[in-house]
């Protein structure tokens, strides 16, 4: 009976995901039915929707008590703590498992999940390692079976489909499965089957600059340098302003360059095509260049489109610095595509981001290419407040003073702030798991986490200082120089 009820409630929750009472009821039933883990997940989801819900806290505590009492008796303390800590992580751990299951090859190779491989890198990985194992249903295997059995394939299939009452037809699929390891395919590809450039994902960006918290000076600069001419075709014509050329964003890592690129695409109502080093690099001779070409072709087909080159310093490294001829060719191809012919790049907006603009080939920064630069600095106070809000809003929090956190987190990047929130959540989680009593993430958790985290931008700012001191003869980094002076780093 309970099973049927639970099943009905599950459907109801799926239909009305915001109905807290329904979720609560389902959670209670699940707990009663011995499914404590799922009950905890539900309680956590209720707390995300309504952090103050006492019923949800009670459900969480009850659910905690259920498995802990069972396992604590059988396991040493540490293991029991682990067992109790696990359910709170359900969302994250499920996501991790799904990823691992989807990419067994990478996981088997120990593909450094801790390094946080990006999706694009994962895609490139799958490109580099095409599945060349024989396909049981493939042409080669089928032909072999035919020759082995000496029967007429067509007639056998006809027998099986047209006359259901007769003897069951020979099961060709089963036979293929039986022998596919013995019979090798007749023809195999010596090259990976993935064609160059086929791994690019194009998307429609839904974020705009309004979604970027604070950072007013950057938005103003983007408007002046890039967006205003695009939005005002009449004025553009009046002043004979060319649309040629791209925008290079530079700054310390983790400060939102990629997010801003998406926001620009959103502002322009354009498609967004993100291109990383791993999407381009290909060991086959000429394929890297072909990938660059394909990326531009795709952007041209999908115009209006923002094509965004992440880590352009790697892709467009100074040719004098690299002995790698493949990379030299890639830079040349990139230059060719940027220059385009006639109005080939009409509607294609080229953006790039780098942490090290000083390593970018100077040819890429000439007029008509990445001739406009925007320095994306660590977030200002307003932006930090937004970032804290974003990372805490879906967590069970209480008494968080966002303004105080924003004031206390000067110099941190967006990624640093995300990490602070992670650490704070971890503290509350471990505490809840240890005591068995659910508690919210408090201001104290966040401030203590804040004290633990040092700005990851420091080393970048040291390098930037050297650039300003020794490598800025032409005033390219005037904006950076002004910032460093203001930050008393110069």
């Amino acid at each position: 009976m309970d099973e049927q009820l639970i099943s009905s409630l599950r459907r109801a929750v799926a239909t009305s995901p915001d109905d807290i009472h329904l979720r609560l009821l389902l959670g209670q039933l699940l707990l009663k039915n011995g499914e404590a883990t799922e009950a905890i997940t539900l309680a956590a989801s209720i707390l995300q929707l309504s952090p103050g819900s006492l019923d949800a806290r009670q459900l969480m505590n009850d659910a905690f008590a259920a498995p802990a009492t069972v396992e604590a008796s059988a396991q040493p303390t540490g293991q029991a703590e682990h067992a109790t800590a696990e359910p709170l992580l359900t969302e994250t751990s499920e996501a991790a498992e799904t990823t691992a299951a989807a990419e067994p090859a990478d996981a088997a190779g120990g593909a450094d999940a801790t390094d946080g491989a990006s999706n694009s890198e994962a895609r490139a990985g799958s490109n580099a390692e095409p599945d060349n194992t024989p396909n049981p249903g493939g042409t080669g295997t089928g032909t072999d079976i035919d020759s082995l059995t000496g029967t007429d394939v067509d007639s056998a299939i006809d027998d099986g489909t047209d006359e259901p009452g007769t003897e069951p037809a020979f099961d060709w699929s089963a036979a293929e499965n039986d022998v596919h390891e013995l019979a090798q395919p007749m023809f195999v590809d010596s090259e990976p089957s993935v064609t160059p450039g086929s791994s690019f994902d194009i998307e429609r960006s839904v974020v705009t600059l309004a979604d970027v918290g604070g950072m007013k000076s950057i938005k103003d600069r983007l408007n002046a340098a890039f967006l205003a001419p695009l939005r005002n075709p009449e004025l553009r014509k009046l002043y004979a302003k060319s649309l040629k050329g791209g925008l290079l964003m530079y700054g310390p890592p983790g400060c939102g360059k990629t997010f801003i690129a998406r926001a620009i695409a959103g502002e322009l109502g354009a498609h967004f095509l993100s291109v990383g080093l791993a999407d381009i690099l290909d060991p086959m001779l000429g394929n890297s260049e072909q990938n660059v070409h394909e990326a531009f072709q795709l952007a041209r087909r999908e115009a209006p489109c923002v094509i965004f080159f992440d880590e352009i310093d790697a892709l467009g490294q100074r040719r004098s610095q690299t002995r790698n001829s493949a990379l030299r060719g890639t830079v040349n191809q990139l230059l060719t595509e940027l220059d385009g012919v006639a109005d080939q790049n009409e509607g294609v907006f080229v953006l790039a981001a780098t942490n090290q603009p000083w390593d970018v080939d100077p040819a890429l920064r000439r007029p008509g290419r990445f001739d406009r630069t925007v320095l994306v600095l660590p977030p200002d106070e307003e932006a930090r407040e937004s970032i804290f809000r974003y990372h805490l809003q879906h967590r069970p929090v209480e008494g968080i003073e966002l303004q105080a956190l924003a004031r206390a987190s000067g110099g941190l990047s967006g990624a640093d702030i995300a990490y602070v929130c992670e650490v704070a959540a971890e503290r509350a989680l471990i505490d809840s798991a240890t005591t068995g009593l659910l508690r919210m993430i408090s201001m104290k958790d966040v401030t203590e986490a804040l004290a633990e985290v040092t700005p990851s931008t420091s080393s970048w700012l040291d390098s930037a200082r050297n650039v300003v001191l020794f490598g800025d003869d032409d005033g390219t980094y005037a904006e950076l120089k002004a910032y460093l002076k203001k930050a008393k780093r110069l």
Partner: protein
Amino acid sequence: MTEHAAKPEDAALTHARTYLSLGKPADALRALAPHLASNPDDDRGLCLASQAHLVAGEPARALDAAQHAAALTPDNEWAWRLVALSYSKLGHHPEARAAAATAQSIAPQLWVTHAQVAQVDIAAKRITPESQNAAREATRLAPMEPDAHLTVGNVALAQHDWATAESAFRSALRLEPEHPAARNNLSLVMLRQGKAGSAAAGFVDILANDPDSEVAVRNLRAVAAVALRHIHFILWVAFAVVTVAFSSASESDNSPMYGMVWSEFLAGVAAVSGIVVVVYVLRLRRSAGARFGQFVRSVPRLDHLLTAWAGLLVADYLLMVAACFTSVHWAQLLYLFAGAVLVAGSIVVILRRNRARVRL
């Protein structure tokens, strides 16, 4: 079409090599991981992994991978060189030397094996005739390879043979003008030869091209320290002369020195020491060329202790000048202060040295 094709395993290795050439060891290791999972005994993959670990600053892991590769293919000189390099980074110099010698015996026709022997000896700070011969053999086998000349230069540098070192580094730079190690080491030779200005210009050039170069920043600080030490020495001499000459004087005309009066003598010493300092700075400026301004402006930003030291030296000189215009009593007092300031400067030098040791 097929001649350009590569097997998937080769593709992984090529990817790893490309990432290594971009200075991205983590990406190289990520590219290698699936390959090594399916081919755990591929010595080329293991060697690349070892190389990536070395670039990532993980010599222990590099050693594991290289030893595995060497065990699988004992005649693979690359694996032995990596073993040598890993041991060398770990400070196990005898083992490093033995591995380098193995590589050398496996492939005596390859210049890199000879260069490796010399490099291991340089790291061990134990230059022998064998090291010199190995470096020379490397350049004989590969006269157009800048790294071979760099090795000769490094051996000479370790032996304080400045002329040979300079010539070797210049040869490397003729072959590859942007070679960062050759440029750095040439500037170091200049510094050791007392050409602080040229050295400063060299390090500033390196930093202009590679702002991440920690070595160049350290060396630039060293140049500034050398310059300040010169000035400090000049001021110590001036202070000592005045102290010895007038330690017992009590009147302004009570001078044991060629009948000169206090103030005239003090003014003379201040002027002479000032001129010597100015001449030294002008020489620095001339040899540093256009980079001098950047060098001087950079010092306060690179090292606060250096700034404090320079400030103390300026204060000391001002005290010495002020002493020329006061009574004997005040002049003696000001010189006492000047002496204290010079001692404080020496304390700053000691603090800097200790800080450098702690960093190492």
